[in-house]
């Protein structure tokens, strides 16, 4: 099997080298005019610290641990993401909890600690796919830099808050009281009852 190489027959005008030079210069000058009349914001170059590229919806950036409207974490500590993670960067510790409420349903398990080592994470999105509760999302933030390794070891509260300000929600802190929600009366009432 051979490839037929098509030889381009140059006209005398092209072989003179002068005319093609003019053509080339016309092309570059057209680019020059176009570029110089385009406002900076519309040029091809995104001048990074001043401007940022808007990432497409499917982009897999920094994780967020989703929470319900009342602030309770969606994660039920099922360990699916930890198992799915090819980079082994997720480490979860589960805990039981009894303070059930309406929004959250009647789960009795939640992570006491949920760590993602961002230095190990390869942003493959496997955790997102594995999650049965849609509790972990990879979103559009991509500026992950720090001065030391420890600060890229994101814990549960970091991950809950990663997009809080972007979404217009209040940032949650561990010390903060959980927001007032209609709580289900707990069993503790029965025990307190002396009758």
């Amino acid at each position, binding site marked *: 099997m051979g490839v037929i190489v098509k030889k381009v027959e140059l006209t005398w005008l092209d072989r003179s080298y*002068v005319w093609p*030079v003019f053509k*080339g*210069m016309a*092309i*570059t*000058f057209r*680019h*020059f005019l*176009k*570029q*110089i009349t385009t406002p*900076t914001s519309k*040029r*091809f*170059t995104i*001048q990074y610290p001043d401007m940022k590229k808007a990432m497409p919806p499917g982009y897999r950036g920094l994780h967020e641990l989703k929470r319900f409207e009342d602030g309770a974490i969606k994660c039920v500590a099922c360990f699916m993401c930890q198992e799915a993670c090819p980079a082994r960067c997720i480490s979860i510790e589960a805990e039981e909890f009894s303070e059930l409420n309406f929004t959250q349903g009647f789960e009795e398990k939640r992570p006491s600690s949920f760590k993602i080592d961002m230095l190990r994470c390869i942003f493959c999105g496997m955790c997102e796919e594995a999650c049965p509760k849609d509790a972990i999302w990879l979103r559009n933030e991509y500026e992950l830099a720090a001065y030391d390794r420890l600060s890229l070891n994101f814990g549960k509260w970091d991950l809950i808050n990663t997009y809080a300000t972007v979404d217009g929600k209040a940032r949650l802190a561990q010390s903060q009281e959980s927001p007032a929600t209609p709580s289900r009366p707990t069993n503790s009432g029965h025990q307190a009852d002396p009758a």
Partner: protein
Amino acid sequence: MESVAHSIGLSAVMTWTLLKVLIVFGSVMGVSSLWTWVERRGSAMLQDRIGPNRALLFGRWQLLGLPQLVADGLKFFFKEDQVPPHVTKRLYWIAPMLAFVPALIGFAVIPFGRSFSYQGALYHLSILEPGNGMGMLYPLAIGAVAVYGILVAAWSSNNKWAILGGMRASAQMVSYEISMGLAVLAIFMKVGGYDPGEIITEQAGVLWKVLPNWFIFRQPLGFLVFFVCMFAETNRLPFDFAEGESEIVAGFHTEFGSMKFALLALAEYAHMTTASALIATVYFGGWSVPFMPEAPVLLTILFFLIKLLFFMWVFVWVRWTLPRFRYDQLMFLGWKVLLPISMVNLIGNAWWMTRGGH
């Protein structure tokens, strides 16, 4: 003029010459250094990029990237003036000056405006008065001396890449000088003299009622040869064989640092300025304003400046459009294409003149 001359203790002629020297050298230096900015921003625009714009004046004003000039200059001044141990010291120190000075003084005979009389005295707007007997031979001779700057820089570096670059550049400049000389010879023949003033007055008037009587329309072939040779003489792309990042590192200025490197780099731009002035003078009527035989002096200066800056822009424009030549292609073009063309141009013009044409 007299009173100013008297107050600084010089004769009126000396004062006027001093003033012209200051104006011309100041402008050439200013334009040359400004063109390093034009080169970078202009090339960026030609290639759909943005170009340098991160240097800020007082941390605030971007000014289209112009503070980059200041930043570069300051950087070169404050860099350590490192002299490698293996160089030939004396030549190594002289080389940047040898490259820069010819580039600058080539401008001396070029008139940059109409001569004018003021209080009974005639003032000429070129550093050397017209009729000095050198005329256009002077910039051509100085252009030939410019080879030494590159060659001495290369040789004193005692570095194989530098020597290769210097050799290539000098061979190129010497071979293109012949075609250039022959092309300009046709002009001298037509004018009957080689004084730039005469060349410019010869180009006054109108050609075929629609064009200015410039030599580009009367000798387009000669212009083509001269123009291409100017690129070779200034070592600009597509003929920049003194350098070559892929083959010989930075070529002739591999071993130069700090202000010495800056001088060598600026010499290229000063060369460009002089070459543009030559092109404008010889083929585009110098300071003459088309269709305005009695233009005011300031307008002639403005027109000279416009022509000069246009050709300097063409140097940048061509650089960022055309790919480099191969060395054998360069020699082929110089000896087998441009030299015959310039000879044909010369003989053809001579024949035409014997037939009474003009």
